[in-house]
């Protein structure tokens, strides 16, 4: 059930090329494809979002309820039970906010990419029977997780403003850039994983392990200056930790809401720590991962129908 809008539909093995670089350089086509197939794309995204809550009485409200409870738990556990102490002394809620803001963005990346990884394989019926731009498949779970992230951000901002840990400044205006970087990065990783998963299903198990290591490698519930103080003798360890695609975007997500990010100025490092620096680093990571992911996905796409 496919209608090709091209007047001539042809393929010749003698002239067809499926090179990685050829597609990698055509990355802007992904955006024009999304625009051209926007009806299909919205249907995919809508289906993805609705199918998560289909049949549940709470429906879409779970998207809101879940982060509220998540924050409430952090608030209770780290603010009262463990009485996490800040440098100033007394029990505080700032750690709950710090933790919540990190987990929010990291979970968004993880959930988006993990779902995207399965997107082609789980739509095997479509991929086999219908000719359609299947590079749109990994995008919809990413869009959905980014939407959930939006709701989480509202909860985070509300909570932070109430406790007084978040101080709004002009930096908040850079927030859409953080969102965009996370979106493009997840799409790139999602495309890469989705295509790899078609050829070797092992990647799904492997990625689960990698994701755990990645979570602990990213400064989510430990502050970066803790490591910076430990490794002053060997600054390369810090540099390696900073070469983490999730690092700049996580940092930037905190900096735009005014969470302090202290690091001893003595620590030698490659990546600048300012919001601008983090945004540039995040944008570079996002672009590289997207171009690689797109190139790989498109160069393997012609084999999908035979393998899913």
């Amino acid at each position, binding site marked *: 059930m496919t209608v090709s809008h091209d007047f001539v539909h*042809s393929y010749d093995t003698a*002239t067809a090329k499926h090179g990685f670089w050829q597609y990698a350089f055509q990355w802007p086509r992904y955006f024009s494809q999304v625009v051209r197939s926007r009806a299909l794309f919205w249907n995919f995204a809508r*289906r993805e979002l609705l199918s998560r809550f289909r049949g549940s009485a709470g429906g879409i409200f779970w998207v809101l309820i879940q982060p509220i409870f998540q924050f409430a738990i952090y608030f209770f556990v780290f603010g009262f039970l463990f009485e996490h102490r800040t440098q100033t002394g007394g029990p505080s809620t700032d750690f709950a906010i710090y933790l919540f803001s990190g987990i929010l963005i990291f979970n968004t990346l993880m959930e988006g990419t993990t779902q995207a990884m399965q997107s082609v394989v789980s739509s095997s019926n479509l991929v086999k029977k219908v000719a359609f731009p299947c590079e749109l498949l990994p995008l919809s779970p990413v869009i959905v997780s980014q939407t959930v992230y939006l709701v989480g951000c509202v909860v985070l901002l509300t909570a932070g403003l109430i406790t007084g840990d978040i101080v709004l400044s002009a930096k908040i205006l850079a927030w859409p850039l953080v969102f965009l970087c996370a979106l493009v990065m997840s799409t790139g990783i999602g495309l890469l994983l989705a295509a790899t998963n078609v050829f070797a299903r092992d990647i799904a198990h492997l990625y689960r392990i990698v994701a755990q290591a990645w979570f602990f490698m990213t400064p989510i519930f430990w502050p970066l200056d803790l490591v910076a103080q430990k490794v002053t003798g060997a600054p390369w360890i810090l540099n390696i930790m900073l070469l983490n695609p999730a690092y700049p975007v996580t940092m930037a997500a905190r900096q735009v809401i005014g969470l302090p990010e202290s690091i001893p100025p003595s620590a030698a490092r490659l990546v600048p720590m300012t919001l601008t620096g983090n945004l540039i680093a995040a944008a570079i990571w996002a672009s590289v991962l997207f171009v690689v992911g797109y190139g790989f996905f498109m160069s393997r796409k012609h084999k999908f129908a035979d393998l899913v």
Partner: protein
Amino acid sequence: MAQPAIEVWNLSKTYRLYGNPWHRVLEGLPGAKKKRHKAVHALKDVNFHVPFGTCVGLVGGNGAGKSTLLKILTGTTFPTGGGFRIRGRIASLLELGAGFNRDFTGKENIFMNAALMGFSRREAMKKYDEILEFSELGDFIHAPIRTYSSGMVCRLGFSVAVATDPDVLIIDEILAVGDMHFRRKCVDRIMSYRERGKTMFFCSHSLYDVRQICDRAVWMKNGEVKMFDDSVIVTNEYATYENTLTAEAEKKTPWDDEDAPKPIHSEDHARVVNAELVDPVTRKPRNVFSPRDDIAVKIHVKNGKIYEPVNVAVALMRKDGTMCMAATSHFDNVLVEAGEAIVTLILPDIKLLSGEFVVPIWLLDEKGVHRFHELPCTQNLVIQNRDKELGLFLTERRWEVEVLEEAPTIFDSKATS
């Protein structure tokens, strides 16, 4: 000459089968030399052209490569050799309801499918009423598809698929769905495409459908095009081949059959030296005929040491062992009284329709009781009919229509169906 709607050249498709998922990984590693896969050739060097406005049927056994060919033309899978070109908007119906999600309502699935086919939301809105009306689902359209019967899912799938107005329509085995009423609607819709001069590529196991709907047909066998010709000729040939296969599967050859006469030949008695099918006019060997042709069987008979007058019997047996005709000389009061003779049986105006027939010859004694010898003709009789007649044989006919009630004044076959 106008350009063809579908062009296919040297099209090949080879699948790689790996015994173990590891083998695929190992073979993909750079520098890997050892081949770890088994190549399966689904399509081998397929070539054909389909002119605009032609309806082409695709027939062939299981695993002949029909589905692979359709998938390649649709664009879901890609060939490993050769290429193809299709001119015009394509719509393909490989599987009804392929994109359906069971938890969503019929309406939601209509929009999903329309989007998959490349329609914008506005175009889909325009088509929605037409789809709903054609599917006859009524209020069920707002219920999740998992509550539908399988027939309802098929109806919705077909309705969505035909709502598009393509130039080239590719259809896989889908007409065998729904109840009689809906099936008729589907066929009507497909016939209307045909009448509007659309190009169609149509795969079916129903040879009757192929013969009725298509102008030409492709017969695929083991991934190759065995025949590409007028649909009547191809379906007839294919049916003959199928019958032969059935016969072979049952290990039944006419002269092994328990009911068939047993040879009791010895040097002492009469025997058939040679028997062949010939042209009744030129008397030269010929075994391919058309219905209503005259056919002749030339039989060389030689008597043995013990002379006896003999009767000759000739039969036409379909390859599955069905005796279609038998001519015995003693029923016709002909007795061969000779030491050696050429006996020719002429069957004027043969009424058989397309098929391949074995022609066994028997020599019998004067009373037609004892059988001396039997031998099949050197070649089988092949009948090819080039019109749409169906069945085993042709017969004279006459129709009578007695009107019991006058037709209604405004007669609309669709409204009353």
